[in-house]
């Protein structure tokens, strides 16, 4: 698959939130405004790309040569958790004011099933090192798109007159469902016709 194909597939066609249904909790349940959402999405995207690359290295140089393929899940979970911790530490040292502004523990929010899901999908796809990195970045971009659009919808809905029993989480989930249907428009065949040979 070409790099354009990977980018379009993992950011739009096979969106990690709206197609794979991963990382829903931060999308519909996380408190905070657009700034906190953007920080969370950016941190998750960064974690996804670094983790995808690390998982590729782990699988290629450790698990497969030693015949420890069955230990893939624990190895990947541990790798992602360690990378999340290291990124959190680096962010605290490098951009402490940004973390204060975000108001959320970035490592804790970024370490969710979407991150591990992308790592597992990348490992299953048999990509090269660079392709794995692009898969992680594209999935992170897809996560960013879904999270920011859902937060914008949530902020609009919170000031609208809606039935009381649907206010809050139920309506956020229904909005996510309608957005997921809208994302069905990003069909693989349709996009391949636009971008010939992707």
């Amino acid at each position, binding site marked *: 698959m070409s790099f354009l194909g990977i980018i379009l597939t993992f950011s739009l066609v096979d969106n990690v939130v709206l197609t794979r249904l991963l990382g829903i909790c931060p999308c519909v349940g996380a408190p905070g405004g657009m700034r906190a959402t953007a920080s969370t999405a950016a941190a998750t995207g960064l974690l996804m790309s670094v983790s995808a690359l690390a998982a590729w290295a782990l699988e290629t140089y450790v698990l497969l040569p030693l015949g420890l393929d*069955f230990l893939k*899940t624990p190895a990947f979970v*541990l790798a992602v958790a360690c990378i999340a911790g290291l990124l959190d530490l680096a962010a605290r040292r490098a951009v402490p004011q940004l973390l204060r502004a975000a108001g959320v523990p970035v490592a804790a929010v970024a370490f969710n099933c979407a991150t591990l899901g992308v790592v597992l999908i990348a490992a299953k796809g048999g990509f090269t090192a660079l392709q794995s990195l692009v898969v992680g970045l594209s999935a992170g971009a897809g996560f960013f798109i879904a999270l920011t659009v859902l937060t914008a919808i949530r902020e609009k809905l919170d000031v609208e007159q809606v039935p*009381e029993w649907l206010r809050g989480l*139920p309506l956020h989930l229904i909005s996510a469902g309608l957005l997921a249907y809208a994302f069905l428009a990003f069909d693989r065949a349709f996009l391949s016709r636009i971008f010939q040979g992707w």
Partner: protein
Amino acid sequence: MLVGLCPAAAVTGRVIDALWMSLGMAFVLILTSLSRVILHLLLDAPGSAGSGSRESGLLGSRWLGVLFLAACFTASFEVIMGAFAPQESAALGIYVPLLAVNCIVLERLADGSPRRAIQENGARIFRALGAAASRGAAFAVALVLISVVRETLGSGTITLFPLGAFGGTIVVSGISAAPARALLFAGGGFLCLGYLAGLVRLAGRLRNRRPRAAGEAGAQ
């Protein structure tokens, strides 16, 4: 509170997938809770190497250790499921390994230190087991409820475990001829979850209103 939503929306297209997922969640939750308490008992015992050490927070070394155990239990369940139900294992795909980082499991891991509770109550292990089992059961009920609604309306069938002469599939006459297939898509999972969450809230409000109305009538 709705946590651990991802499998609730993703694997509820068939009832049998929801049942397998619930089984996996119960397996991982119970064994992880048990190992977490045992680990705390060993490390926090008076005179042990870990005694008096500071409780590690999220992404701390002790938390990572229990997370690794959760991932090992998940991998064990993957192997067991692959041996006994290879088709269902393939159908669930990446969602079984993702049990290790499900919010319900992570919430149990990030729960406060049971050190004081161990000192106060020696039956902590049984309490942890009970809490894990009840959470697993609640997760199973929610997952099966969503999957019954989605599969019945989305394909007009209910798929269960095959048993003897029973093939495992119940056809719902009337719906199976013209099902609402859109419910089986990803968006259908969100829609179903959203409406069910709203209905649960509505039922809770109606239940709260009834005793209040009865109390007011009694006062008059």
